[in-house]
Structure formats: C-alpha cells, structure tokens
C-alpha cells in the first residue's frame, strides 16, 4: 500500500495544469471563480480547445477518441479541471449519452454521434424525469408507438437541464405499456428540431433558468435513433446513472471553493481581525476540509478499485460519493454565506453571460452577489442525480442487504 502519487503522475498533473494555464481564457476562469454562469458559446469553444488537444473525452475507449489514461490519470485530469477551475465539458454528452452510445449503440450511431459529442457539435440534454416520475423514474409515462420506420412520441419531460440550448435530447420512453414497468422502456435519441417539441423554462429559486419542461406532441423519431434493443432502455439508464454518480462527488470543485473561502476570509474582517483569524470560523472551515480530504481518499479508493472491477458495473460505493460529495458542496456554500455576512442580502440579477460588464459598481464586495443564489441553487445537488434519500436506500439494500 502506497497512497502517494508516483513521480510520473505528479508530472502528468503539472502538464495538465500548464495546459489549462496556457489555454483557458482568464476572463472565463474569473467567471467560474466568481460563481457566475458562462455562455453556451464559451463552453463550446473551450470544449473544442480540449478536443483539439485530444483531451475532449479522455475516459472514452481509445478507438472513440479516448486517451487510454489510467484511472488515476483520469482522476487527476478531472480534479485539475475542477480545481483550476475550468469549465467541465457538458456531462450530458461526454459522461451520459456518449458512453451509452459506444457501449450499446449501433455502428451508425457511433460513427455519427461520438465525434460530434467530443467536439460539442451537438448540445445534448437528458430527458428522463417527468412530473410524475422523479425518484420513481421507472414509472415514466412518455410513450413511443412504432409506426412503420418511426416512433411517435407523446408526453412530457421535466427538469431538463439546459434544454434551451440543446440540439438533441436522449429520452426514456415507454414502448410496452403492458410489461412490468422496468421492462417496457426504451432509450431514444431525439433531434430537438423535430416538429411537435416545445420547451418551457422553469425558473429556479436563485432567479436563474437552467431547467425546463419539454413537451412532445406526436413527435416522429426514426427507428434508427433507438439505442440498443427495444424495451431494454432501463438497463442502459442504470448504466448511465451509475456513471453520473461517480462524477457527482466533485472533489476538485469543493477544493477550489474551500481555497477561495480561505482567500476571502483573509480579506473580510470580523472586528479588527481578518475573518480567518476568528476561531469559530476557521474551525468550521477546517472541519469541512477534513470531510473533503476523507472524500478525496474515498474517491481514490473507488478509482483504484476500478482496475479490478467488472467492466461497466458501477461500484455501489458511488452512492457514498454522491451523498458526501453533495453535502460537502452544500457546506461550502454555507461557509461563503458566513463570510459575506450582511452583504448576502442584495439581489443583483446576473448579467447575461454574453453581455458586456455593466459599469454600475457592485453592491458590497464584488464577489457578494452570487453567494446567496449559489447557496439556494445548490440545494439541488442533494435532490438530483438520484436524491440523497434514494442513495441511502441503495446503500441499505445493495451494500448492507437490508
């Protein structure tokens, strides 16, 4: 047992960090640091920079554009990306539908979609949840009826993240209403420009618009867009959700946040002293750091075990990562509330990501306006990706056999 990174791995880390330093627009990095949103185009451009370097989809199989890195290298890359911070490539493409396509899709699907995902020629969104089917996803009702060489889709999806930008949506649809609920579901790829699709925004409590309802009214989808076999969609969805949960720990994101909190707490004062000298505050901060270090080690254990695990089978420990990862992210948003104090209160609608900076001076410290909205918005991380209650249920059943 030697838990240190090898010299090669450390050198790799430096290489990755150097690349980000040389290639990421500092203005975009500043937006991320400030907790502001970036535009669609900024993400597309950045993804293409990564892809040109050959790092667009590092974790994919080499024949589809992956790097062949070891799991530890994959981890280092992701951590550096999050901690730099640099924008993460859109998960719906590279982490969700991409792996489903290269694992279960047809040759045509692989050839057509995979390079486009890696280069962000298509923006993907995830059409799983429905108003009546959240935690109980398998009860979904959106139906697809085969008519010749098309499926006709009717129904509604909801919570569809960034569907307003999307070119494509991957959906779970019911193709066999008579079967047991998990057994009548199929996985369809749908072009968002198909007639009959309507997107309606849902405003979140921080004032942002990142989720949507998507309505399907007699939407005709070519049968060639079915992934794998009809009525086997639930298996593919489980595979996908397992991948989603390992990425959800976001150790690097929390590291970056904690570093920033330390920085800001050295500037903000409580009385005569910088906040970071206040014993109550700095012990709270240190306590979260302890939690994060433990999570990082847990994450590395999961990464190390990947070498020996049966391929494509997610580790049940990913539920541990999801629960702790989301809780720690939420704790960091609370620490920032502590730091900002009374200047959490002003509400300044975020300028459009594409708009020029306004010349109105900020109200209070220039980093204050995103603090409360981020705290509010981050309540989502214990709700989505399989809520933390559902994760506990998985641990109780799959790990403990209760």
């Amino acid at each position: 047992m030697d838990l240190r990174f090898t010299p090669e791995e450390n050198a790799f880390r430096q290489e990755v960090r150097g690349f980000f330093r040389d290639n990421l627009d500092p203005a975009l990095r500043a937006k991320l640091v400030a907790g502001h949103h970036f535009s669609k185009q900024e993400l597309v451009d950045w993804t293409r920079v990564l892809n040109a370097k050959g790092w667009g989809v590092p974790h994919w199989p080499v024949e589809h554009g992956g790097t062949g890195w070891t799991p530890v290298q994959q981890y280092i890359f992701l951590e550096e990306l999050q901690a730099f911070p640099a924008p993460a490539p859109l998960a719906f493409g590279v982490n969700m539908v991409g792996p489903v396509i290269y694992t279960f899709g047809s040759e045509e699907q692989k050839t057509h979609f995979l390079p486009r995902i890696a280069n962000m020629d298509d923006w993907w969104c995830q059409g799983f949840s429905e108003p009546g089917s959240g935690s109980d996803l398998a009860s979904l009702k959106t139906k697809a009826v085969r008519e010749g060489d098309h499926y006709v889709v009717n129904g509604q999806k909801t919570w569809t993240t960034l569907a307003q930008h999307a070119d494509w949506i991957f959906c779970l649809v019911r193709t066999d209403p008579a079967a047991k609920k998990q057994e009548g579901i199929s996985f369809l790829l749908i072009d968002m420009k198909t007639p009959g699709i309507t997107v309606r925004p849902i405003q979140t409590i921080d004032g942002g618009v990142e989720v949507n309802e998507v309505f399907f009214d007699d939407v005709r989808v070519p049968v060639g867009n079915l992934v794998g076999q009809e009525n086997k969609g639930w298996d593919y969805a489980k595979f996908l959700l397992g991948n989603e949960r390992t990425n959800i720990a976001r150790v690097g994101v929390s590291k970056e946040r904690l570093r920033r909190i330390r920085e800001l707490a050295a500037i903000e004062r409580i009385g005569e002293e910088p906040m970071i000298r206040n014993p109550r505050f700095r012990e709270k901060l240190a306590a979260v750091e302890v939690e994060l270090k433990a999570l990082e080690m847990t994450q590395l254990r999961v990464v190390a075990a990947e070498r020996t695990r049966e391929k494509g089978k997610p580790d049940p420990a990913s539920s541990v990562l999801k629960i702790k990862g989301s809780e720690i992210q939420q704790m960091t948003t609370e620490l920032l509330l502590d730091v900002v104090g009374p200047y959490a209160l002003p509400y300044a609608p975020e300028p459009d990501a594409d708009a020029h900076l306004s010349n109105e001076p900020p109200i209070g410290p220039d980093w204050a306006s995103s603090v409360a909205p981020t705290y509010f918005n981050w309540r989502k991380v214990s709700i989505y990706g399989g809520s933390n209650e559902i994760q506990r249920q998985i641990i109780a059943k799959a790990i403990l056999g209760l």
Partner: protein
Amino acid sequence: MDFDLSDEQRLLKESVDRLVADRYDFESRNRFRSEPDGFSREIWAQFAELGLLAVPFAEEHGGIGGGPVETMIVAEAFGRGLVVEPYLSTVILGGGLLRHGGSEAQKAEILPAVAAGETTLAFAQVERGSRYDLFDVATTARQDGEGWILNGEKGVVLHGDSADRLLVTARTGGSRRDRHGIGLFLVDAKAPGISRRGYPTQDGMRAAEISFDNVRVGPDGVLGDPGGALLVVERVADEAIAALCAESLGIMDRMRDLTVEYIKTRKQFGVAIGSFQALQHRAADMVVAIEQARSMTYFATMMAGEDNAAERASAIAAAKVQIGRSGRFVGQQAVQLHGGVGVTMEYSIGHYFKRMTMIDTAFGDADHHLSRLAEGGGLFKAA
C-alpha cells in the same frame, strides 16, 4: 407561569391572522412585490386601519400601548404570509428608536404619522466594514453651530429606498469601534446630500445603499445624547431580533405545513412519499427544531423588555442562535422533501426558505450570537 394570551391579545391575533389569510396568498405577495415601492401601499393602509402600525406606541402618540407579546403576534403572522411591507424597518426599528431615544417633541411629531400609515422609516446602521457590530460606526457627524453635518456610507438599509425618514447612526466622537461617541440622527430621506441606491433583496424585499455627503441636520434632528446612543440602538436591535424570531416561527410553521401537505399528496412508487419512514423521521425532526425555536421565541419575547441590558443581551443572543440553527435545518429539509419543485420560483416553499436564510444575516447570524453569548459567560451562570 402563563403562556396564554389575554383576551385583547387573542383578538389582535385573530384579526392579523385573518388579514394574512385573506389578503396575503402567494400570488398577491408576488403582485405586491412588483409595485413601485416593492410593497403594497393599500395593504399598508389596511395595517394602519387594523391598528397594526400602532402596536408598540403609547396611546398619547396614537398607539395602542402593546408590548413584546403583541409585536410577537403580529410578526409571527407576517412570517406565515411572508409579508414584504416595511413593518420591521418602520414600526420596530424606526419606531423603536424614537420610542426609546426620541424627545417628547420628536415622538409627538412622528409616531402618530407612523401609526396612521402616513410615514415610513428606515434604520441606516450597517456599514460595509461593520458586519454585525452595532458599535462599529465610521459615518461621522460633525457639530456645526447648533446642528450637525453627516458624512459616510450606509448599506443594506432595509426599505431605505422608499422610507420617508431615516434614522442614522453616526460618530460624534471616539474612534471607529468605540462604544462611546455614537449619535442617532433623524433626517428627511430627501434631504440634500443624501443619495440612495435601491435594489431588491434575496428574500423579495427592498433595501438601499445610502450615502451622506455633507447632510445637514438641525438641532431637533438628534435623538437623545449625541455621544451616547449605543444603548438605545442595542435595545432596539434586541427588540428587532425578538420580532425576527417570531417572524421566523411563522415561517417555519408554514414550511412544516407546506411540507407535510406535500409529502401526503406527492406519490412515488405508487404511494404517498409521506409513507416512507425516512421522510417521516425527517418531518418529525423538523417539528423538534421548530418547537425549540418556538420556546426560544417566547423566551426572547419575555426578555425583550428587560431593563438589565446584560441579561437581555444574553437571552436575545441565545434566541437568535436557536432561530438560526432551527431555521437552517427546517428550511433545508423543507426544500429537500419537496424534491425538484423545492428549488423553483413557482412553489412558495423556496420563498420561505430564502427569507428564513436572510433572517440569519439580519442583526447577527447564529455564529455571531454564539460568540456574544459565550463571551458574556453563557446562560446558566454559577449562583
């Protein structure tokens, strides 16, 4: 020991509860917020008509002579409705400062107009560097003949953009963090030299950054001792915290009701999610947290009028800690149990959650008051 309300208090409670129930549903609130001042002048007039704006004032000033219990009753109801009108800033803060610190002439001039709903007030106290310390004042008041000249910047002044009059803390002597040398001034919000930058707040209300550039205040504009206003400010802040505790209680009760209602009706896996023991226990923990908060709200209410400043301060600090902790827990659980809809603007639960969060940052968060309490020797001292 008597936790019961008197007959008059019960009547007050019935009338304010009814007003909130009848006039203050979620949609109405959204409408009120979008009015020019960020609240409804019509509702404000109704508050006046019902005597709610007169609650803490003496009868000779157009008031009804109520005490902390009456204020608690009103604030709790306002919490349930998430009322956005400037009650705290006008009646509790501005009115309180005048009540405790104003001359007879000042009270007679302003309090009847406040009670009648004709004048609104705001308390310009926080500064960019003061954080939660009431004595940390950099804004200056320089004596000029009989009067004073104010210079400085105040921030997050609740309802400061629409208020008719401002009560301003400013330093007449000493250095920035001295307890002595703080004066309290009453100025017309439109006086020359005052500029106000109003903005919406995270919890659906309004506030302002206000700068004072050689603002002249006449001799009749100073409240009490120009170098010794801190005691009045602290007393009024304690009363405001007691009112915020009561408002929080209304908010938490409502969050519990909304959540219980939701988990009874929302179905997943073919059953109401409220049938899952994991969620039942979470809801039960919410109840425990709320009952602790209720008790401390009563304690704060009982102690808000205490003349021994040290005892009052520890009691109020303790209550604010409890409210902060309970409020954080109850708010987070309420959102969590709602699932995705909990983080949307369309559902009211998120708006309660936001107001609850912001109350923690008003007049000191839980950590601030925990330190205060600990430094003061705690609650249970050796006999």
